[in-house]
């Protein structure tokens, strides 16, 4: 089976691409504006020039805390010591605005931190869609979705399971913009239970009610993770592509119950287990069962090795394979591909795999935003992409027919 083939000519794949991006007081940018078309975008420049900041800005156009998982107050532009104390203290308002091309239509979207002088007020993210204030980040999720791969994720298979759970949840959010609701509801209920147990609560009815919430939301989260990982598995398993086939499995007690019984029965089972483990969980100071204990297991399909045992290059290749499968799944489920943010993507990839990755991105009609320190890494893209040079927070378009560009590669 050939994976990542161009979309079937009979299936009209929609388009999702940014055509304009404005940054205001964002990280190192005072103000920046990029006019682009739907082709992939390559941002090159020295370290610390502000390339990843552009990717982070794009990531804020989808629900969530962006690719750095930053607090809103950390994102505003920081001034140097020459500015007055009043300018340096407190979170600064910032904004990211964009025009999104959605098939034949365009929509103006924007998000940012609301300017406020009241220090007691909570930081609040504002969402604007065609000039109207959106109710929640989910409104953005109905319009856009973004997947990303950053150098920090290179250790995804080596570090703790919580990073992998967040990774899966982020992939799900691209398919189901409301997935954040059950995840945070489960987390809220679990923290409530832990607190009640810690305080020695003996009110069984109260614990029952909190555990009932955990059971309902926990099973909903586990079921969605299971369903999504199964779908990803179908798309990521083939061995004949440039990136290794990956065996994916969501592993956990709830997941195994869901394999054996209906969701309603699994809810009852989870409820009973929570009730039975109150005493031991009180001693443990934590909840010992639930979707917060599940893990995403990844194996290299061909050699059967656990992803964590593979070489650094193979781990990166497996991760790219999963991300591309997720992009393909989103295209299939939502009718249009997500935005793809690939930070320092060329690292760990040989020339053959780099070229293959670019071919896949172009065949899936994905607007990928890629960064690198060296133009030559993106040579294989040629005129299929648009190139920008970033230096000290200044963004300039490079013409691919420009002599200097070819000299540089």
């Amino acid at each position, binding site marked *: 089976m050939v994976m990542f083939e161009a979309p079937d000519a009979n299936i009209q794949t929609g388009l999702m691409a940014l055509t304009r991006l404005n940054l205001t007081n964002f990280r190192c940018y005072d103000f920046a504006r990029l006019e682009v078309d739907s082709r992939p975008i390559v941002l090159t420049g020295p370290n610390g020039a502000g390339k990843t900041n552009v990717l982070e800005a794009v990531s804020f156009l989808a629900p969530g805390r962006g690719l750095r998982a930053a607090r809103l107050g950390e994102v505003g532009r920081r001034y140097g010591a020459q500015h007055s104390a009043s300018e340096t203290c407190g979170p600064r308002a910032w904004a990211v605005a964009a025009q999104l091309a959605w098939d034949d239509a365009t929509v103006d979207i924007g998000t940012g931190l609301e300017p406020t*002088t*009241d220090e007691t*007020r909570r930081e609040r993210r504002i969402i604007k869609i065609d000039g109207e204030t959106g109710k929640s980040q*989910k409104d953005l999720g109905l319009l856009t979705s973004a997947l990303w791969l950053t150098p920090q994720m290179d250790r995804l298979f080596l570090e703790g399971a919580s990073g992998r759970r967040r990774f899966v949840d982020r992939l799900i959010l691209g398919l*189901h913009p*409301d997935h954040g*609701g059950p995840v945070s*509801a489960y987390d*809220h*209920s679990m*923290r*409530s*239970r832990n*607190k*009640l147990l810690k*305080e020695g*609560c003996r*009110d069984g*009815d*109260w614990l*029952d*009610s*909190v555990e*009932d*919430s955990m059971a309902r*939301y926990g099973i909903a989260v586990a079921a969605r993770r299971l369903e999504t990982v199964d779908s990803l598995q179908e798309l990521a398993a083939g061995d004949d592509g440039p990136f290794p086939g990956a065996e994916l499995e969501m592993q956990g007690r709830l997941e195994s119950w869901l394999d054996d019984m209906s969701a309603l029965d699994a809810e009852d089972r989870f409820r009973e287990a929570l009730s039975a483990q109150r005493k031991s969980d009180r001693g443990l100071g934590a909840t010992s069962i639930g979707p917060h204990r599940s893990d995403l297991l990844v194996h290299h399909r061909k050699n059967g090795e656990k992803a964590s045992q593979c070489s650094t290059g193979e781990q990166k290749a497996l991760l790219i394979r999963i991300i591309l499968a997720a992009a393909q799944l989103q295209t299939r489920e939502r009718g249009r591909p997500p935005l793809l943010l690939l930070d320092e993507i060329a690292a760990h990839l040989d020339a053959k795999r780099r070229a293959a990755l670019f071919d896949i991105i172009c065949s899936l009609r994905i607007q990928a935003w890629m960064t690198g320190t060296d133009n030559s890494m993106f040579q294989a893209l040629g005129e299929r992409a648009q190139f920008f040079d970033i230096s000290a927070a200044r963004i300039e378009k490079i013409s691919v027919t420009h002599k200097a560009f070819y000299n540089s590669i």
Partner: protein
Amino acid sequence: MATGDIDLLIQLMSKLPGLGPRSARRAALHLIKNREQLLKPLATAMASASQSVKQCSACGNLDTVDPCVICTDARRDSSIICVVEEVADLWALERTAVFKGRYHILGGVLSPLDGIGPEDLSIGGLLNRAGRDAISEVILATSATVDGKATAHYITDRLSECNVTVTALAHGIPVGGELDYLDDGTLSAALRERRKS
């Protein structure tokens, strides 16, 4: 800028819900400019409310009489109690003019993370009413939040010993709502709770 009484007025007004320091200054200035038409009548009304408004010992509603007019209204069905979180929720339901039973105000929802437990709410009072009065139905009208739902679940458990039917408000499509714009949770709740038309 301002001193003494004006400053105090602004400070106090900025503590009101929905008002920040800037809007409190504007509101205070507006009151002072309209001393006869607004400031004095408001001060009188506030002094009077502070004297006369009390909490209904039966349901927790706010009124100038105890028990409140809803609890003593003989035209209302005393066998049905609607449980709400706050007085504002009672007012919202009263605006619909649909519900003709009585109320019980919890005073919030159970929230372990905020340190709010059953003893901080008027759940004991509700159980007394359900056990003592001739109550046939208790309608739970708590919010559809995690804590609101957990509170409803808790009350249902506690009421299981009383001989009452416990119901909850339906979740579904808002009047005038378009299906395409609804979230999956609301739509699936609406489907689950569909009824014969």
